[in-house]
């Protein structure tokens, strides 16, 4: 591994300044992903700016039904939180499904959202793919079993973060810190597909990093996250589904539905969400129309080949199970 400088600032402002002081400065949180990339020779930072000592980055504020989680909160912290388990089960289930105890101990919320794709052509130093500045996506006509079936454009990665899928269903907000201070955005605006930016998976610019995540729940709400892994004990998602529903007077007044492992960004199913709004939860249970909508929710999917077409059925079956679970919880 190449030599680099290591900085451990104590404020967000200092961190941002250090990140803008060198074009090859890299922000680092848990380091489980970046260090792997550095060892592979995929990235060559001149300096690492650690967020470990930055004030306020490990906050865990609860205010009524609202929660603010600092970006340096670890995945183990999330898994161990009884409050999150009761109020945001989808987030806890997603965090628990990530990797292993060793990785969850140091892997962080912000780092999980900003991890780089697992596409084997991207990860291999032997392939100069589009994402790395080359002129070809090697998955096209190559080994595409793990690649996207929808939303791919030129580059066919799938977004690797399980937590991003859960947070999409939970309508999280992302707070970014950068040279011009704080920026708040919906989680949907944080992630970008290859059609917008082929080199990055999110909107972070030089000197910016995720500061915290905000989520809120209602008095009568439930959520879940389900994931299919090829290797049960530790793996990335072949497909996953997150569902979050809130009720007011027996009717659905908030619905979040997202799929993972199938697209370059967490894939929100807006049509399903809109269909559910205002419907009494009991009616949804036995609605043939709703079942048909769910069944055809990936109608626009275009698998790269027969090798990754299995993801349509896999994602839909997980979506159905996730919806059943949440609807049953609330009935």
């Amino acid at each position, binding site marked *: 591994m*190449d030599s680099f400088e290591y900085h*451990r600032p104590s404020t967000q402002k200092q961190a941002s300044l250090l990140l803008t002081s060198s074009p090859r400065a890299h922000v680092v949180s848990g380091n489980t992903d970046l260090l792997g990339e550095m*060892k592979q020779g995929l990235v060559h930072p001149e300096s690492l700016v650690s967020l470990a000592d930055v004030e306020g980055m490990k906050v865990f504020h609860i205010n009524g039904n609202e929660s603010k989680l600092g970006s340096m909160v670890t995945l183990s912290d999330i898994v161990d939180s009884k409050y999150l388990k009761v109020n945001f089960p989808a987030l806890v289930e997603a965090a628990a499904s990530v990797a292993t*105890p060793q990785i969850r*101990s140091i892997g962080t919320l912000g780092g999980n959202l900003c991890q780089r794709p697992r596409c084997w052509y991207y990860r291999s130093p032997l392939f100069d793919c589009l994402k790395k500045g080359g002129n070809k996506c090697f998955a096209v006509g190559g080994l595409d079993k793990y690649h996207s079936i929808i939303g791919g454009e030129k580059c066919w990665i799938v977004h690797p973060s399980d937590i991003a899928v859960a947070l999409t269903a939970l309508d999280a907000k992302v707070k970014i810190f950068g040279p011009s201070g704080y920026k708040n955005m919906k989680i949907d605006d944080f992630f970008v597909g290859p059609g917008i930016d082929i080199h990055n998976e999110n909107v972070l610019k030089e000197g910016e990093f995720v500061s915290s995540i905000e989520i809120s729940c209602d008095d009568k709400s439930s959520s879940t996250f389900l994931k299919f892994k090829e290797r049960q004990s530790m793996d990335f998602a072949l497909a996953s589904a997150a569902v979050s529903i809130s009720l007011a007077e027996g009717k659905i007044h908030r619905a979040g539905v997202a799929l993972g492992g199938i697209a370059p960004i967490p894939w929100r199913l807006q049509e399903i969400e809109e269909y559910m709004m205002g419907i009494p939860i009991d009616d949804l249970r036995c609605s043939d129309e709703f079942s048909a909508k769910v069944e055809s929710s990936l109608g626009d999917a275009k698998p790269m080949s027969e090798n990754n077409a299995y993801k349509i059925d896999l994602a839909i079956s997980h979506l159905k199970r996730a919806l059943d679970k949440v609807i049953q919880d609330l009935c």
Partner: protein
Amino acid sequence: MPAKTYVQTTINGEHVDFLCEPRQSLLECLRDEIGLTGTKEGCNDGNCGACTVNIDGRIVTSCLVLGVEAEGADIETIEGVADGSNLHPLQLAFLENAALQCGICTPGFIISSKALLEQNPNPSEHEIRFWLANNLCRCTGYDKIVRAVQDAAKRLQEA
């Protein structure tokens, strides 16, 4: 020669300071700078768990932690598990259940299992297998390791 950083830690209950380059992993620091070679290098990318150590009560793969990131950490390695010449019940259980062959993965398994039994003194077989997902053994086929952890849990509860 890049400048070295001065790092202060506690390792197995003793204050340990060392100098390292930012690019050195905690695993390299433990083995090459401090001389604690009980922690093993396997894959060096976080998959095999041979380099597992405990930092501040949580297990980590030390190949994915930089030495400089260990500043202020309380670290437990395999060298700190036995009490002098008295082996820890987990170590005895591994020996008596023949839960090792080549032994490279064993320090990682012991550190991971110890953390599990500290927070869950009576884990089910399913819980043991999932907890040890990040520790790979290419010799034993895992069964003897799981039996050894169950045996150690019994010994610790009876103690």
